[in-house]
């Protein structure tokens, strides 16, 4: 187990090391200015300096993205369930969901600021919207793709609509819902950072805009790396939950 993990990751790891090395050498060789492209070593130094004062920003962004993610997940699952159980409602609204899924939510941000000001609410709305669509669509897909033979079996056995949903369709959609959750988890961090650009007291987005406006490019990189790490941590957490929830699943096929 351990060795196989090592075996799998040494190549990408080596690639990253080489990439960083080349980057370091290139910035020195061509004496590129730090404000334009800092060397990896500059970024590490900068990180050492700012990380101790970073926790309020980190906390704020994490809280924001987790809250938005949770609200978005709840609303997404709720809406998917309603649309699934009420075919008429689905026929009416599903096209809009698909269309709005393909719309960059961020463009709504200025409008939301006009309506709700610079507090947390417009930010939460943006994150919620960003998380809502992948979850609603994946859950709905999972519900409707339920194995027909299992549905037929349940109906023959006299299952009512509620039993069909809770005992078959919902558990059947779990793997599909998780693929939505993974996308939403990454979106939530991105949406949180971007929404902080609009104006906030704290947050990685704020830190980033401040650093950028004073050309402290190393700091911008630090912020980018932190955002990436949060995003990856989210992803890993969801992956862990997924492993726990669908431990029954065989690789490849099921049923």
């Amino acid at each position, binding site marked *: 187990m351990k060795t196989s993990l090592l075996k799998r990751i040494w190549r990408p790891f080596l690639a990253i090391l080489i990439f960083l090395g080349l980057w370091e050498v290139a910035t020195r060789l061509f004496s590129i200015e730090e404000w334009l492209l800092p060397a990896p070593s500059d970024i590490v130094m900068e990180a050492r300096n700012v990380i101790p004062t970073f926790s309020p920003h980190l906390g704020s962004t994490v809280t924001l993205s987790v809250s938005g993610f949770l609200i978005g997940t709840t609303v997404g699952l709720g809406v998917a369930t309603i649309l699934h159980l009420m075919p008429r409602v689905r026929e009416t609204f599903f096209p809009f969901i698909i269309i709005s899924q393909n719309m960059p939510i961020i463009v709504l941000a200025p409008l939301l600021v006009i309506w709700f000001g610079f507090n947390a609410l417009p930010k939460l709305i943006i994150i919620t919207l960003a998380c809502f669509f992948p979850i609603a669509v994946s859950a709905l897909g999972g519900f409707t793709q339920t194995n027909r033979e299992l549905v037929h079996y349940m109906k*023959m056995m006299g299952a009512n609509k509620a039993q069909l949903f809770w005992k078959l369709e919902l558990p059947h959609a779990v793997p599909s819902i998780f693929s939505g959750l993974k996308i939403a988890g990454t979106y939530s961090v991105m949406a949180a950072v971007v929404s902080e650009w609009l104006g906030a007291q704290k947050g990685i987005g704020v830190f980033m805009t401040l650093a950028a406006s004073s050309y402290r490019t190393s700091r911008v990189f630090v912020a980018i790396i932190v955002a990436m790490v949060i995003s990856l941590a989210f992803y890993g957490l969801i992956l862990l939950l997924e492993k726990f929830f669908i431990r029954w699943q065989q690789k490849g096929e099921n049923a």
Partner: protein
Amino acid sequence: MLELHNVSKSFGQKQVLQEISLHVADGEFVSLIGPSGSGKSTLFNLIGGLLGPDAGDIYLNGEEITNKRGFISYMPQQASLFPWKTILENVLLGQELQGKKDYTRAEAMLERAGLGGVIHAYPHELSGGMKQRVAFIRALLSPQSLMLLDEPFSALDEFTRTDMQKWLLSIWEDYEQSILFITHSIDEALFLSDKIIILSVNPAEIKDVIKVPFKRPRDGDLLLSEEFLQWKKKIIDVIQF
């Protein structure tokens, strides 16, 4: 127990079943044989209440169940086990839908059926034959007194199939449930049933009902006996006529 009175069903212009009347007694094993597309599964959907007949009524234990669901237990051709449930949870599904789960009885039954080793396994860990066994136990554990089995063994290979038939009899003979069983195999129908109903096609009508005289418990030797072959010939004659 189960009675169908002049049940007819069409899909659009196409009449599938015409005035089917049949009877399954308490504890009886009845097989339905007929060509592919004759409407056997449709008949099951009618009895299960998934479809309504165009004409005719269906009674179970004297109570009308036309268009009503939940009165029968069912085993389909594909095992249709829930992949996220263990074998134990799977066999309890019929009980779960009707109310109370009896774990002790289910465990005892799985032990008896030779499935004691896989009680906590998941369906994907089982072979096709084992899955069908689980599906049969699931149907048997459901509280309903009539079981509908739609070609339960047709996806299995010949060896597994004969084993399964013997196994099914060995388990079922201790229970009171009645069985209505769809099959394409005359051997299977003869070996398992008390009564065989032969259907025609386009639309399906009952061609003949044959009482099978073999005594129970039955064993594999029966399949090779002279008497068995004679009955088989008789059924082939009915089908070809």
